């Protein structure tokens, strides 16, 4: 299988760290954990939650991630803004939109 160069990212919302690609080549989809429970024991999602899971797989072509949140910081290469597969997916979506509007 084709492998991308994997990088380590830190989520700017939850401060968790993760690698964008697993050793087997599969992509890792980060999603922030909920906030710690309040004094009443109620757990809520972060308002700036990042969720890299795809919004849907039911359509042909490029998808979108569920929520950008506060973005990510690449810890292994400061020139990289986000996981490569997301950049690629956005480029593909932009191209499809351009074709649709043409």
């Amino acid at each position, binding site marked *: 299988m084709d492998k991308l160069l994997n990088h380590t990212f830190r989520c700017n919302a939850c*401060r968790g760290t993760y690698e964008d690609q697993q050793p087997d080549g*599969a992509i890792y989809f980060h999603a922030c954990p909920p906030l*710690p*429970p309040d004094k009443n024991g109620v757990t809520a999602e972060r308002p700036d939650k990042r969720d890299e899971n*795809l919004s849907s797989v039911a359509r*042909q072509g490029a*998808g979108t991630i569920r929520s950008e949140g506060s973005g990510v910081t690449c810890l292994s290469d400061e020139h990289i803004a986000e996981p490569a597969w997301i950049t690629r997916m956005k480029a593909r979506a932009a191209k499809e939109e351009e074709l649709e509007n043409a």
Partner: protein
Amino acid sequence: MSPSATANQGRQVVLATQNVPPPHCIYLTQADQLNLFVAANLIERLRVTARIILPDGSLSINQWDVLVNSGIGNTSLFQFGLSEGFLLSVTVTNQLVARRGQVYARIQLLRGGDFQGTVAQILSQGYITFYSQLFWPDFESVDSVSGIGNSRSITGTTPAAGAEISETVATGLLWRPQMFGFKFTTSGVAGNRQVAVSIDDGVNIFGYIISNVNCGPGAAFFFLMGSGFPVGVLYANTINLPLPADLRLQSGCRIRTSTGSLNAGDQYSNVQYLVEEWISF
């Protein structure tokens, strides 16, 4: 011993050698298209081969290579034009090293000029690996969530200090968690922490697994979860927790920790788990 009654009687079956009808009765016109639907969670190259008897009696072998380049679990459609004739066979093979559970494909005939055409006939559907291809005729139709899935070892997110672990089943997948391991390092702040693991549907918790071992300050604990594991200390600070047997989690479900008296300096790390995974629509 008398000779067998069937011996030396010559050929009983006479085979036609001219104007022989094709063995499979799918007649194609130029309005028919071969359509390949693929759902894959890795980048994969596929080759589609169709053998067609043309009206002049010659055999045409058509081959198309496609790159499933999303690699993120969403679906791809490819369409191939056909010439008039009788379809003899279709195969879909992979060029790389997908394992069962990673590349699910359906090959079908469409009537009409674009992707919105009418599905005339599904020829074959199932997972493709290097050793297991799609083929027609004599195909079998395999659902994407049947049989053995792909065993995947996944390294999860290391949460920030004072935050919980939370791992989500990705979109378009079905997981059967088999093992789930993590490390919990407590800060020096006094007090016992109680580790629990919850399983939810993305919102509502439907499963709680609570450790009966309190985690004191200034120490590291290793938690291992597995089907059939008893609750308790395995060795030193290595603690077992059970996972429900044959638990199937659809996309959006989460496995996460829920820690009683979690301190801001406590740190979860080394999140590693094994799941059996299927593509699920």
